[in-house]
């Protein structure tokens, strides 16, 4: 049995920050370099740790607009400069990676951080990693299914024998380093029912990535996870959610700073996916009724508490600093999240 639920029990609420390593803007309006952007995330994680934020999650992308392609390397850097914060990927695109290497790298981060490493597995929504690492996207489902299976077999940290189509077979293979308390694992899902059931099947905690629309639409997926776990005989772990946000001192300032950043980011991705340009109406609608947690600490806290109640979610991870935002505004956001938003949400949830 794995110990992936060690970080969340049903009576606690945990709060995290997620970043893809977007390039922040400099004072002159130009973008930071990739190395600077990576160092910026490390500084933000150090601040988050000081403020008692529970988790930093780093996404894996292979595009010019995001500096982090190797989350666990950045996490290793953060590991030696922080004390308590959980160090997660968000997500590790397992389909185009090797489960054995993923285990080894995260087990190493786990050692460096005294047991704080966590792998959040996902299929990912970008596709760049597939041609980059020599995988065919037409095998998307099979790659993920097989690799999750192998990864789950590695977690007990005993010799593994495994055979599949997507990588070389293993015969009684032992993988190192061993961890002290087991590696933290969760699975990130964007709304595919099949993926929700898969999380239950492998006895992994579920994190719902909700990036648009009313969060309560996802309540049936939480129920699906629980029912599937019951049917299969696994544990329904506390469920988490992840959504984008932006916090500043006032609603007005937050919207002023977030709008151009979100629009730039959305339109850039939309170009390759055939989305129409992001509109101001869409932005405001998502803030009012959907899944953009943008505003003053009070506005954001109320929205988070409402969503967590609606989904019975025990963890909330905010994707912060999406799009070109100044380093200063990002640090301010981390500070407001840790000092104001989280205490307010906890207060609201205890009522």
């Amino acid at each position, binding site marked *: 049995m794995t110990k992936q639920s060690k970080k969340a029990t049903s009576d606690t609420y945990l709060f995290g920050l997620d970043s893809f390593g977007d390039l922040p803007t400099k004072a002159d309006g130009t973008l930071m370099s990739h190395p600077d952007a990576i160092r910026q995330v490390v500084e933000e994680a150090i601040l988050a740790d000081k403020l008692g934020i529970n988790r930093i999650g780093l*996404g894996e992308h292979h595009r010019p607009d995001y500096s982090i392609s190797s989350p666990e390397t950045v996490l290793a850097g953060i590991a030696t400069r922080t004390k308590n914060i959980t160090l997660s990927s968000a997500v590790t695109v397992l389909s185009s990676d090797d489960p054995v290497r993923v285990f080894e790298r995260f087990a190493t981060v786990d050692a460096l951080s005294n047991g704080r490493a966590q792998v959040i597995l996902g299929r990912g*929504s970008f*596709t760049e990693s*597939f041609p980059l690492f020599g995988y065919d*996207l*037409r095998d*998307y489902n099979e790659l993920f299914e097989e690799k999750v299976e192998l990864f789950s077999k590695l977690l007990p940290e005993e010799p593994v024998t495994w055979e599949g189509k997507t990588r070389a077979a293993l015969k009684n293979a032992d993988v190192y380093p061993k961890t002290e308390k087991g590696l933290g694992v969760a699975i990130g899902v*964007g*709304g*595919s*029912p*099949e993926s*929700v*059931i898969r999380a239950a099947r492998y006895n992994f905690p579920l994190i719902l*990535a909700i*990036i*648009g629309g009313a969060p309560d639409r996802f309540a*049936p*997926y939480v*129920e*699906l996870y629980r*029912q*599937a776990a019951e*049917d299969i005989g696994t544990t329904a772990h506390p469920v988490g959610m*992840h959504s984008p946000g932006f916090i500043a001192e006032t609603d007005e300032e937050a919207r002023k700073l977030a709008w151009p950043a979100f629009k730039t980011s*959305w339109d850039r*991705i939309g170009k390759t*996916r*055939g*989305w129409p340009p992001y509109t101001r109406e869409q932005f405001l609608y998502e803030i009012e009724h959907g899944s953009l947690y943008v505003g003053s600490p009070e506005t954001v806290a109320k929205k988070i508490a409402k969503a967590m109640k609606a989904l019975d979610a025990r963890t909330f991870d905010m*994707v912060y600093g999406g799009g070109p935002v100044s380093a200063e505004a990002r640090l301010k956001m981390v500070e407001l999240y840790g000092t104001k938003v989280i205490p307010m949400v906890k207060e609201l949830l205890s009522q």
Partner: protein
Amino acid sequence: MKPGIIGAGKLGITLAQLALKAGYEVAVSGSGDTQKIALSVKVLTPGAIAMTTKDVAQWAEVIILAIPLGKFRQLPVESLKGKIVIDATNHWPEVDGPREEIIPETLSSSEDHARKLSPKHCLQAKLFSNSCQRVG
């Protein structure tokens, strides 16, 4: 009108939820036997009927294709002939592979599907096609 939805992924389930909310009797199929989608249908779209694709084709009066374009080939085309089909598929190169391997160069995907299915009417529902992909 009885809508049938072929595809039990994000799009298919969402459309089934909306159709149920609007008061329709709805059937949903996934790939393979109904057991695979039974739990999803029961929990996410209570009231909808899980069927095989062949049964959906027979039962429904309007059929929505909510599957990846590359999966069209796996459909039981014969059973869809003469039906009203709303086609929500579109070409996503990374997932579906090169276009020329699936659709003739001179046709849109829905035109190609219309010819293969020779349905009564074929609507290309472009709107759906990109609305369900997520960023993240």
